[in-house]
């Protein structure tokens, strides 16, 4: 959005000679965070029109999901936001559980909350790293990757994968956390607040950082709502909307945390929001560790993969009346209900919603993914209009988009 007092540079930027020209940024450009193409109409360095183009990574997940069972479609969600795959898995599982009216044991809920926040940290670290790199702060990039590596190692210890986890299951989680994992995580938690302070020392009051971010890419709360922004992009504009508070899921109503809000709606406000969120994530993880209750990690009536999680569960693959597939009925009750449900979770990027329509078969009749990145890129045209081309890069970074989720 254009603001009249907007001044990155102390000297006025030349308007150009009235000769407009177009520039194509991407799809292979290091600052577009994936295969995003932006067609620009420029006058000098000022953006007259900005047209983001997506779709390069479209894999047709919504169509694919209609041809897979609920358990099989879980792995598609890893490939949405591959930076925080765990949060996508949890969002998917929650939606399916609500659709099939399954209950999740308390321990599994806590573990999920824990891994969700871990993936929020991992995502925010990657965001900070690349965003700072775009603006020119190289050191932050290296520091953030150093800490992100610890988190990825922890994920690897938990479920064997570093990127595409598929660790949550419909009805619970796949494996229990080990003491070694908790110890390692505790060490990370003790160490990490000092690291956040370290990043902040580097850029928080850095003159170049402030020049590049304060008053740039301003979105008012009303505009943000109209554009459909969610997550830190919306909270940076002062709108208090966090699904962890508004519609608590898993163990979020059991833990104590605050939702950081900005007021200016510029890139700096969004940056501050995400930094504060990292502090809150640490608080949540700490409480999850402290309160972690004993008990089972997957519900009794959960549809299961062939590899059983429970000692007493029977293995009856491919022998049920629903045709082939890995799902089988454990209890006598009708597992697949007919109806539709929309369940949204607060992933690091914003509100990730799954809209399911079930017609009573073991496959979703329709699965729609409300992808925050897609909506945020859609908002880029309005935010970048009238600003400088250099600030477009800062804006893309600040919206925190990932193209795998945008294109689905």
């Amino acid at each position, binding site marked *: 959005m254009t603001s009249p007092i907007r001044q990155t540079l102390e000297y006025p930027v030349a308007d150009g000679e009235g000769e407009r020209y177009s520039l194509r940024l991407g799809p292979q450009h290091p600052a577009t965070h994936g295969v995003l193409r932006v067609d620009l109409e420029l006058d000098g360095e000022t953006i007259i029109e900005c047209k983001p183009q997506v779709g390069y990574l479209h894999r047709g997940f919504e169509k694919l999901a209609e041809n897979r069972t609920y358990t099989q479609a879980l792995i598609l969600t890893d490939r949405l936001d591959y930076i925080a795959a765990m949060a996508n898995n949890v969002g998917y599982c929650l939606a399916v559980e609500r659709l099939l009216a399954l209950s999740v044991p308390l321990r599994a809920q806590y573990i999920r909350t824990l891994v969700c926040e871990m993936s929020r940290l991992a995502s925010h670290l990657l965001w900070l790293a690349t965003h700072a790199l775009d603006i020119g702060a190289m050191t932050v990039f290296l520091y953030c990757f150093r800490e992100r590596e610890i988190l990825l190692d922890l994920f690897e210890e938990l479920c064997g994968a570093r990127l595409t986890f598929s660790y949550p299951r419909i009805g619970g989680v796949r494996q229990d956390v080990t003491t070694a994992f908790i110890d390692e995580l505790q060490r990370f938690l003790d160490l990490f607040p000092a690291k956040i302070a370290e990043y902040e020392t580097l850029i928080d009051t850095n003159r170049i950082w402030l020049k590049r971010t304060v008053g740039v890419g301003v979105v008012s709360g009303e505009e943000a709502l109209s554009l459909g922004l969610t997550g830190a992009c919306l909270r940076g504009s002062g709108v208090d909307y966090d699904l962890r508070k508004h519609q608590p899921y898993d163990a979020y109503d059991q833990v104590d945390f605050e939702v950081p809000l900005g007021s200016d709606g510029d890139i700096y406000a969004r940056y501050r929001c995400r930094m504060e969120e990292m502090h809150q994530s640490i608080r949540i993880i700490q409480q999850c560790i402290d309160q972690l209750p004993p008990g089972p990690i997957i519900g009794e009536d959960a549809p299961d993969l062939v590899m059983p999680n429970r000692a007493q569960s029977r293995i009856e693959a491919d022998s049920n009346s629903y045709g082939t597939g890995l799902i089988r009925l454990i209890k006598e009750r009708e597992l697949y209900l007919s109806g539709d449900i*929309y369940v949204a979770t607060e992933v690091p990027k914003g509100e990730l919603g799954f809209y399911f329509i079930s017609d009573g078969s073991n496959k979703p009749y329709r699965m729609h993914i409300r992808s925050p990145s897609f909506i945020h890129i859609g908002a880029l045209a309005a935010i970048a209009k009238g600003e400088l081309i250099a600030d477009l890069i800062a804006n893309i970074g600040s919206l925190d988009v990932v193209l795998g989720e945008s294109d689905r």
Partner: protein
Amino acid sequence: MESMAIADRLQAQFPDEILRRHVFQGQVGVSIRPARVVEILRWLRDGDALQMNHLRSLCGVDNGRRKDPELARFEVVYHLYSIVLRHEIRIRVQVAEKEPAVDSIVALWAGANWLERETFDLMGIRFNGHPDLRRILLPEDWKGHPLRKEYPLKGKEEWSGMTELLAKIKELDTFGFQPTDAASGQTEPGQEKQS
């Protein structure tokens, strides 16, 4: 406010437009006729008692294979939420099979622009009054709308852009490199054919 109470108010305000209510797992959906959709959504957004200012999602649904005979062939589903009052509702607009079209709500939520383009792209529902209704995820020359039920999971032929690309690769291939042999691992280094 409970979602049911919102549905009651909607019923009182627009008695002729409301077709049905659907309740499932505590979530309420309201089927409406397509004619006054913009008016209804504006009323939901602006009314002091409702203030449903957040458009959570907008998507198209193909009811072609659903067993319910009362549903029209297509649906456009809006999820609304009030950030201030913390209540939600689902609006399901019934759209006829022949030349499916609904009025655009870009004037209400600017963010609906891309969501409507996506629905048009994947489901083939047109939005009247949309400023820029083009394909968004698929290439401009794509044939058909993939999320329709009659659209196959795997088509018979490649997309024309892909065939062009393959032809281009062949044309530029001056070294006679055969990627298929190497990729499948069929040829051992010692067993290569002498050419």
